[in-house]
């Protein structure tokens, strides 16, 4: 079986391309971005809000805050709608209807982020400006748009988690006289908890990482936001807005912004991976 060994070796080499790609990305992003952080000093870079490339000031504190508030807002919407939809699909929907809703959610995930951003600009932003005040381009607008964008991620992973709960749990609870909602709330959601937590964390990663839609609706101001009606700039927007004309230290500082984003995402991913692998063994149920 010499041929089989050769094929196996070739397949292994190809299979290592994903991890090699990850390694290359890590090395190059850090190589470009880390030196400038070390030169400026972590405190200056992370805790100062003064970003003035022309005078050599690179502080990204307001953008870290911007990314955080926008993401928290997005998660409120994403969790309520995403998890609600997952519960409807797995527990209360007739199979025929679920077969229609699922591809619809996939379609929602397929719509380009620039289109989401654009829809935010032409519909949501004027609405906020006229009825709530402020410039319209704001934390609130970005949160709503991002919430809709991360919803498919949260829904699809939560659906998988809920469907993986053994059928016996459901039947046992119904047999004890619980209603379907009591069963969902007290049994299914608890049993699927680790998967749902992973779904939320991965959704959070999506929200922090989204770029184009946020540029279009968040207003990109460098000031720290004081209310949800204030404009903000996120880490991602900072890179995409200035990369086109940056050079020298400025460009390196943008890569350093990328390093910050990269570390946040990798921490979130690792938590999600660890949580979803954690499946408590329950004795007796097979």
């Amino acid at each position, binding site marked *: 079986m010499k*041929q089989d060994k050769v*094929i*196996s070796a070739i*397949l*292994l080499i*190809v*299979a*290592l*391309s*994903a*991890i*090699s*790609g*990850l390694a*290359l*990305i890590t090395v*190059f*992003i850090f190589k*470009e971005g880390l030196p400038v952080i070390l030169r400026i000093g972590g405190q200056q870079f992370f805790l100062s809000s003064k970003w003035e490339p022309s005078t050599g000031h690179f502080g990204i504190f307001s953008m870290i805050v911007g990314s955080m508030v926008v993401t928290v807002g997005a998660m409120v919407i994403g969790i*309520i*709608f995403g998890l*609600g939809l997952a*519960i*409807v*699909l797995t527990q209360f929907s007739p199979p025929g209807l679920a077969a229609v809703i699922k*591809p*619809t*959610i*996939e*379609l*929602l995930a*397929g*719509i*380009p982020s*620039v*289109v989401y951003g*654009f*829809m935010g*600009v*032409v*519909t949501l932003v004027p609405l906020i400006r006229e009825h709530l005040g402020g410039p319209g381009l704001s934390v609130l607008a970005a949160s709503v748009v991002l919430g809709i964008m991360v919803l498919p991620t949260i829904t699809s992973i939560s659906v998988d988690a809920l469907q993986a709960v053994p059928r016996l749990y459901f039947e046992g609870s119904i047999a004890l006289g619980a*209603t379907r*909602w009591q069963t969902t709330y007290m049994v299914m959601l608890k049993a699927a908890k680790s998967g749902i937590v992973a779904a939320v964390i*991965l959704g959070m990663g999506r929200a*922090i*990482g989204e*770029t*184009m839609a946020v540029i*279009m609706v968040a207003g990109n101001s460098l000031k720290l936001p004081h209310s949800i009606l204030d404009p903000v700039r996120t880490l991602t927007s900072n*890179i*995409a807005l200035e*990369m086109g004309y940056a050079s020298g230290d400025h460009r390196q500082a*943008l*890569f350093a912004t*990328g390093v910050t*984003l990269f570390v946040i*995402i*990798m921490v*979130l*991913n690792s938590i999600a991976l660890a949580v979803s692998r954690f499946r408590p063994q329950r004795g007796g149920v097979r």
Partner: protein
Amino acid sequence: MRPSPAVVQRVVVAALWTLAAMTIGVLVFIIIYILAHGLPYLSWGFLTESPESMGRKGGVFPMIVGTLMVAGLAVLIAAPIGVATAIYLTEYTREGKLTAVIRFGADCLSGIPSIIFGLFGFVFFAITLGMGLSVLSGALTLALMVLPTIIRTSEEAIRAVPYAYREVSYGVGSTRWQMVTQVVLRSALPGIGTGVVLSLGRSISETAAVMLTAGSGLQLPHSLLDSSRTLALHFYILSREGISMPNAYATASVLIIAILGLNLLAYWLMRRFVAKVR
């Protein structure tokens, strides 16, 4: 007095269905809004002419070609690598440290934001490897970005092929490679196709990574090393810089129709696959 469980259930279920209806309402609204504003400006000329004065007039022909080149090439590169990885994971090895490393790579890659892929593609493909802002840089960057999706969907498709198929194949004396290529892959093909089609859709939609790697040249790309502006980026520039709203809507319509078509194709492939392996 606490309301009875039956009443609670009725209220909760009504609320949940409202959420579901609102979500689908948002999707339908986006599609109808874009098409209603864009379709009136969509014409044969718009699809086949080059843009004039930065896109204020004329069509989007070079962007359609650019999008097809960047996204098509990305999928052409990622699909064989992704399917080979899936074959290795399912047919050629047992679960162990090595598969854990491969899976970790794919999982992490799938969580990385597109702007980071853009930064990487810019410094690695465009500058370090000297490809410049080009179709090739963009395609390679996107290939890396959609690779995890193709690996995951291919693996699921291959695992769904009944075990009996493999036993029968071995039973009639085929080698492992013959079994994989002639039996398993053939049955899993529509399932793999679903992942490939969805990846193509994602490549077409992508903007941030393409902006930093393929550039925004307005002219028709003649080679893989030419810069090219994709439809999604063209739409972004037209609408953000307020160059031409009619042309922005028309460009968005082309994008939405392409995405709708690809998702329908993916759905159809999935149904064929489910019917086949059942």
